């Protein structure tokens, strides 16, 4: 069984490797990679060929739960066993959502059980992980061949649904992701505001509004953006709410 270990503390990684050695008689494993923070894990896991990921929850840069959420989009996503020293919220959420976890210090017997179970189980689903997460992600992710490209949520100007994809627009470029706009709106309330049935705009990116030129008897408004040339149409239904937002903006 190919294992990947992600933990920010070197002694914790050493300890897991020791334990894997101890249980080699019961479960045969090989460690195919290690990472010392969440972002490093996302970079290395896809190409590592890992089948099971031992994933610490509290890591700098990106926590284990968010790492698992991004990896879930991979075609051959590894099974995940979370590891935590103490996180009451996470442990409760794992129980409720049937995610497997180990408590530090880890016992060899528990580790063997968890690995056997993980080998048989599929990778945790995106919805399952989303329900277990305490808050919104800091990144959205796009799978490009065997690579996960991360888009920081705070760099996103707007999200627009087109057929089965959502376009993610930053200052520099566009990405396509396979998520639902409604779920995104729910996850990032506060950061984005709905301006149209198919479009969410970052509040901080709104520069102003412009009345649509050459309008007939049905005038409507366009959102002007900070950092992008596009003008996005505002639906009549959303306009009153947006106008108030402008009034609040200093």
């Amino acid at each position, binding site marked *: 069984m190919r294992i990947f270990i992600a933990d*920010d*503390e*070197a*002694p*914790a990684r*050493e*300890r897991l490797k*020791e334990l894997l050695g101890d249980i080699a008689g019961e479960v045969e494993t090989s460690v195919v990679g290690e990472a010392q*923070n969440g*972002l490093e894990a996302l970079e290395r896991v896809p190409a590592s060929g890992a089948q099971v990921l031992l994933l610490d929850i*509290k890591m*700098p*840069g990106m926590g284990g739960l968010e790492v698992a959420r991004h990896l879930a989009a991979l075609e051959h996503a590894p099974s995940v066993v979370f590891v935590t*020293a*103490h*996180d009451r919220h996470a442990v409760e959420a794992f129980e409720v959502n049937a995610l497997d976890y180990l*408590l*530090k*210090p*880890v016992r060899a017997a528990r580790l063997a059980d968890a690995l056997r179970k993980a080998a048989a189980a599929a990778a945790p689903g995106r919805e399952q992980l989303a329900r277990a997460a305490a808050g919104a992600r800091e990144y959205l992710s796009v799978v490009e061949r065997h690579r996960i490209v991360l888009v920081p949520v705070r760099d996103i100007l707007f999200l627009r649904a087109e057929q089965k994809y959502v376009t993610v627009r930053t200052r520099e470029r566009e990405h396509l992701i396979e998520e639902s706009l409604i779920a995104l709106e729910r996850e990032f309330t506060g950061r984005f505001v709905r301006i149209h049935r198919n479009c969410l705009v970052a509040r901080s990116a709104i520069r102003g509004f412009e009345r649509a030129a050459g309008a007939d008897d049905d005038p409507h408004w366009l959102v002007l953006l900070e950092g992008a040339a596009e003008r996005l149409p505002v639906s009549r239904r959303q306009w009153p709410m947006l106008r108030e937002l402008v009034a609040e903006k200093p």
Partner: protein
Amino acid sequence: MVSIRQNVFPDVLPDFRNLGVIARVLVAVNALALAGSLFAATDLWQALERFLRAAAFLEPLLLAELVALFALSPWLARLSYWTGYALIVLLTTLLAAGYHAAVLGIAAVGVGEVSRTMVTCALVGAGLLAYFRLLTKAYSPALAEARLQALQARIRPHFLFNSLNAVLALIRRDPRRAERSLEDLSDLFRTLMSEPRQFVRLAEEIALLERYSELEQLRLGERLRITWELDAAPLDALLPPLVLQPLLENAVYHGVEPGTATGDVLVQIERRGDRVFACIENPYLEAELGRAGNRIALENIRERLALFFDAEARIDTHAANGRYRVEIEMPYRASTP
């Protein structure tokens, strides 16, 4: 529990060298004079006039009493509570009588008036001492509770389990270092679980900081870099226990652990004249903005400093240029060896 508290917090005379105590005495006596003037006068204007006249008489006496008590304070503190109590009342009363006689002349006012001054003074003095006694009584359980609360808020289970995990990882590779780490861990917990004490020597608190930092270093390795500036630290200074260690723990928890880069922490303690100055500084991480955990420890320390030093200690925080800094300043009180 009750009996323990009584042992730990016996009656003590107020510290007449403490600014808070002096201020309370000044305010209370003047408030009494004002109340008396209001009571005796027929209208507000007259009351004010009476108060000013009373104050002109009273203030020099009051200051003289406070100076005398200030001078005698260390000596008084060595007496048993009730002996001290009686002596203070006697002393202030005699001073008042002497002052009255000297200012107005015994012949001019007569024995009756002087004895009235003496009785008033004795009553006010006894009343104030009773007030201070109640004040410490009221604070003592709060003190014990605050101490307990500090304890619970401080040992982060996260720290305990991660440290144990790190030690487990050491046992096979470096048994000696594992032994040392377990010793550090037990020293740390011995202090956390010890009987509540009023004061510890700064040297003890610094030893605690070092034990704690050893354990964090084991876990975090090169991600944690602590600079110690302790050359001018007054090792014999007295301070409430666990005032600095929680601050270092906060610095690591909020300033180093959530970051991927190396986190520089500065610990600086020094004596500046009759003050002890301590400062702990860590990187200010954007991801940690708006976390509430840190406040609890700070409030707890602020409260305990106020209990021990009244208005004479301060604790401030600054965030600037990507650094977060906590500063503590308190009076230097040397421990008697």
